[in-house]
Each structure stands twice: as structure tokens, then as C-alpha cells.
């Protein structure tokens, strides 16, 4: 379990602002800023954060849909961050992605059988009757009727389309599956079906997963460890249960307290932290700790020094947080200012 399949080292991704935006030309969106983490074989690493925190960009850099600005992505000991497209091909087979939008990620003019069969053809793994058999096995595995081989995506519902996307992604038995908000576009009752399917597949195929979502309850359900991102930085990373019960970073606390809980009794009993304002612009991120302008615990140092992502308060070695004044268990988020 502890062997790492993938390591991300000081990954940075900046996008230039569009040229037609005259006043901002020459500026950059700091989408991902110096992120390091490892993904262990067989685990599910959850990546949570709000819109614009860089979680999807990080995933796209890992799978090399985007070129890195700097930093490294190391897959089984091999640095893949600067490989050419053809050198990358053998790795692509082993890293696959499931997207959020089951409508946008399938070509509407192609039959489902050929969509799911693409990976086999591209990598020259099967053809003819053999291809058809393998595609139908896959359809069966993800809960689609293999007789629907010749249908078009439009003839399937949203949940079934997501199953098609999953079948395509696991066709080549990848080691790493990156799921980018795979259930966000689905209705509640269908969402549970897909989450259960992903869990089953992970066990059966021994997949390592990176699961990206803005929905903390979903991430909690599927993940072994969870990394919380804010404005391009990982601000806390911990085993799932630890993160939910012993969150150290004030932002994580606020995020947890904002999850709507479908239970009015629990809802009124818990600590409510409502943050003020919106996340600042990733074009000119705040100095020091990026959360300091909204943080109820911030002091002068928070605006000056960026806190490193390290162990805090004698936690387990797996629990890291980037905060100068981490919250202790049972401590209220807003504390009395110290005399200094």
C-alpha cells in the first residue's frame, strides 16, 4: 500500500492571460503553484476544492493533457513531464481519465461499440471479432447491455453515458484512473449507482484512482486519503477519516462546516463557519498564506510568510497541513488574539 505509483514534485502550471485582455497582458493565472504529493498504489486519492482552485488543472498536468510550467511528474520512477508525445504513448495506456460531462466527452456521431473500442484500435491491441468480444465484455462489466453495441450516445441516459466513459477508460486495464467530477452532472439516485460501480471496479481491477470533486461527501465516500486545494496550493492532506474528524487548516474546517447535511438534527448541532467574501483572483494571489485575507485566525505573519505543508500538532505522519496557526481538536476556529 505504501509504495507510490506516481509522484508529483513541485508542479507549477501558469496560464498566460488572453492577449485581448490588454490591461492584463503579460500576467499569468497561477492555476497550480508548487504542488507536491504522491499517489500510492491501490489507493484512491481525493482532490477537493472550490471552483478555480486548480484541482482539474493538476490532474490534466499529471496525465499530460497540459504541459507543465515547471516541476516533475514521476510515474513508477520515470519522469514523464518532459517526454514527447510518442515517448508518452506507453504511459498513456496506463493512465486514463473519466470526465465530468457525459454529454461532451462522447462523439455523438459514433456508435458506442466503436467509442469503447477506440483504445484497443489506437494501441493495436485487438480487431475484428476479438475487438467486439472485448468491448461487449467491458459493457457488461460496467453494467451496460452488450446488445446496445450499435447504439449512439444520444440513445443513452446521463448515467449510462458515464458508464460508457468509464468502460472506455478502463479498456486497457490502466494502473491509474483519474476521475474528474465523474458524478457531478448526475442525479442523486444515478450518482450512487456510478459511485458503487467505481468502487467495484477499483477492487476488481486493482486500480489506483485520483478522484476529483467539489463535493466533500462524495470524496469522503470513495477516498483513502484526501488533499484539499485552495488557489493552486494543497493546504491540507490526510487520510479521509482524519481529515473529517481532525481538520487542522481553517479553510478545511470552513469547507467541512459548509457541507449541507441531509439531517436537520445534525445540521443544527454542528459548528457553523460562514466565510466572508470570495476566493481571490489566481492572477495576483495574496502574499504569504493564500487564505489569509479570509481567515478568521490570520495574524501578521500569515500575510508575509507562506506556511509549509508539514505535520502539525503531533498528528499521524500522514496528516499534513499548511498553516501557521493550525486548529486543535475541539478548539473553536476564531481564537483570541495573542498579545504580540
Amino acid at each position: 500500500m505504501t509504495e507510490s505509483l506516481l509522484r508529483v514534485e513541485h508542479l507549477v502550471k501558469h496560464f498566460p492571460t488572453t492577449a485581448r485582455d490588454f490591461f492584463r497582458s503579460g500576467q499569468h493565472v497561477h492555476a497550480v503553484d508548487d504542488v507536491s504529493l504522491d499517489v500510492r498504489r491501490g489507493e484512491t486519492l481525493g482532490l477537493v476544492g472550490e471552483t478555480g482552485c486548480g484541482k482539474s488543472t493538476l490532474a490534466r498536468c499529471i496525465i499530460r493533457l497540459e504541459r507543465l510550467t515547471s516541476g516533475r511528474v514521476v510515474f513508477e520512477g520515470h519522469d514523464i513531464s518532459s517526454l514527447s508525445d510518442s515517448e508518452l504513448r506507453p504511459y498513456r495506456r496506463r493512465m486514463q481519465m473519466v470526465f465530468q460531462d457525459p454529454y461532451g466527452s462522447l462523439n455523438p456521431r459514433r456508435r458506442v461499440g466503436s467509442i469503447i473500442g477506440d483504445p484497443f484500435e489506437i494501441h493495436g491491441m485487438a480487431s475484428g471479432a476479438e475487438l467486439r468480444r472485448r468491448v461487449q465484455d467491458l459493457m457488461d462489466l460496467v453494467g451496460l447491455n452488450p446488445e446496445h453495441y450499435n447504439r449512439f450516445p444520444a440513445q443513452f441516459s446521463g448515467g449510462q453515458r458515464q458508464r460508457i466513459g468509464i468502460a472506455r477508460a478502463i479498456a486497457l486495464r490502466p494502473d491509474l484512473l483519474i476521475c474528474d467530477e465523474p458524478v457531478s452532472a448526475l442525479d442523486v439516485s444515478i450518482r450512487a449507482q456510478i459511485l458503487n460501480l467505481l468502487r467495484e471496479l477499483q477492487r476488481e481491477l486493482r486500480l489506483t484512482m485520483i478522484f476529483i470533486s467539489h463535493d466533500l461527501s462524495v470524496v469522503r465516500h470513495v477516498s483513502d486519503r484526501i488533499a484539499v486545494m485552495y488557489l493552486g496550493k494543497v493546504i491540507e492532506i490526510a487520510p479521509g477519516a482524519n481529515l473529517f474528524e481532525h481538520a487542522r487548516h481553517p479553510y478545511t474546517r470552513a469547507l467541512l462546516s459548509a457541507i449541507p447535511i441531509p439531517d436537520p438534527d445534525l445540521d443544527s448541532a454542528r459548528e457553523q463557519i460562514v466565510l466572508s467574501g470570495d476566493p481571490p483572483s489566481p492572477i495576483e494571489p495574496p502574499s504569504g498564506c493564500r487564505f489569509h485575507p479570509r481567515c478568521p485566525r490570520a495574524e501578521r505573519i500569515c500575510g508575509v510568510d507562506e506556511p509549509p505543508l508539514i505535520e502539525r500538532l503531533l498528528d499521524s505522519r500522514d496528516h499534513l497541513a499548511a498553516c501557521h496557526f493550525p486548529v486543535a481538536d475541539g478548539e473553536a476556529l476564531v481564537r483570541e488574539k495573542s498579545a504580540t
Partner: protein
Amino acid sequence: MNGSLLAVRDLSVSFQTPDGVVEAVRGVSFNVERGKTLGIVGESGSGKSVATQTVAGLTRGARISGQAIFEGRDLLKMSPAELRALRGPGIAMIFQNPLSSLHPFYRIGWQIAEMIRAHESVSGDAARRRAIDLLGLVGIPQPEKRLDDYPHQFSGGMLQRAMIAMALALQPRLLIADEPTTALDVTVQAQIVRLMQRLQGELGMAIIMITHDLGVIAGMADEVFVMYAGQIMEQASRYGLFRQPSHPYTTGLLGSLPRVTASDEPLTAIAGQPPSLIHPPSGCPFHPRCPQVMERCSHETPAFFAVPDSEPHRSACWLLDPASVGQE
């Protein structure tokens, strides 16, 4: 019935489409009490939005039957001009996407002031001052400056606030909020929910909160009903609904939700797909997916039965019929 602001009786709405007649809402009745919050939960296509849009006169071209009595007058029989006069001071709506309610070419403050001037004869200056007050009320910082911003200069959460400001400009008695927080991040969602609760306390309006998110409903509704395939399945106080869910669809929905207090169990998903509304299933619309389906469910539409020990709480399910005990 004393405090009832809106009473909807047997509302049905259908649309003619190239594929056939879509029966979006099928015989829905409910009350909204003054100053209270009614939550409507349902998945895509359950009819939750169509039902409320019809009440506000926004479903043109639909075939509508039933009644919607608002302060003694039937909304469904009003002329477009009467409805226009009522929308704003009587009933206001906010939507999931604030950009659908704000024109991108006009300044935010101007749009709010214009809305006030369309209904009341006040000077431009007075309307502008009211717009500033309203933006302040919904928590926009420096409202006297932000008044002259265009919609694209606002963030998603701020636009949602601006839309709420506009909806509240004429102090409506009823605010219909259709998935107002669905497009927002959780921390911003918490801000908006809190804002709506505060404003409800200050202005005393009733709210119909439409959402697919049971968590949002649990936090703010006084009464909740669950819709499926154009019908109400279950209706209860929020405590009744979450402590003692009765209808198999409601329990299925609750079981489908991953909890923050996670266990390692798989979720108890509801099998199958929501039905087509062109040919809705006979009998109980949920029967093809129901784990507790009985013989009569496929051909007899269940009546509402009171859920014991949880008043006021009713559920459209044959399982509650004393006569069906032993039929499983």
C-alpha cells in the same frame, strides 16, 4: 389554512412536443404558509420547476389545469398584464443562473432601479438610493461603488446576491427560489442560504425553495415535499421527513447520498432510470424501480396515507394502506 398565502389545487401541466405530450406535472396540491419556507425536492424531470413556474405564469404554451389561489385570486386565470403587476411586489423568482436574469449590457444598479420604477412611480434618484440599500442588504461590499458595475464584474456568489436584491426590491410576499445555490461552491452556498434565512426573518416573506439537494432542504425548509415523475410522493415537516422517511423513493434518495460520517458500505442506490413523462408508468410512478413493489402498485395509483406518529406527514404509497398488509 389561516396563514395560507398560496394554495395550489390539483395542478397539472403538459407540453406538446414532437415526441408526444409530456405530462410534466400531474395533479399536484400544496399550500404555502405566510412567512414559512416550503422545500420541494426532486431529481431532473420530476416537475418541481415546471410546477412553480406555472404558478408564476412562466409556462407559456403549456396545457394547464387546476387552481393556484394567491391571496384569494387564481393565478392561473389572470391576464398577462395582471400577472406582470403581481410579479415583483407579490411573487418574485430567483434562478440557478443569475446571468439569465441580469442583462450583460446594463449596469447592475440601473437594472435594479429600473425594476423598481417599472412598478412604482419614484424618481430616478430615489430608485438608485433604494438599489444601493438593497445591494447593502444582501451583503455586497461598497454598494455605492459596485452599483455601477456590469454583471461580468461580479463573481458568481455576488451575482446571486444581486439577483436576490432585485427579487426583494419590491418586498414580495412570496419568493420562489429555483436551485439558487446549485451553481455555487459550498462556502458561497452557505453564505447565500444564510442570507436568505436572514432576509426572510427581516422581511417576513414566504419562500418556495426548489432543489435537488436534500442537504440544503434539511437546513432551511419548514415543510418539505418530494416529487417524482410529476407527482408528490411524500410531504412532511423537515424533521418528519429526515427522521422518519416513509416513501420508498425518499428512503432510496437518502440512501443514495454519501455521508460525511462515512462508512465502508456501498451506497444503496436506486436501480433503473427515472421514467419518461411521455408515457409515465401506470399506478405508482415509482413502481418499476421500487424495491418493495406489490402487485397493486402497477395499476392502482396510491392515495395519500398519513404516516403514523409523525404529523403532519403523508406519503403516496400502498405500503401504508392497512388493507395491503400481508400482500407483499
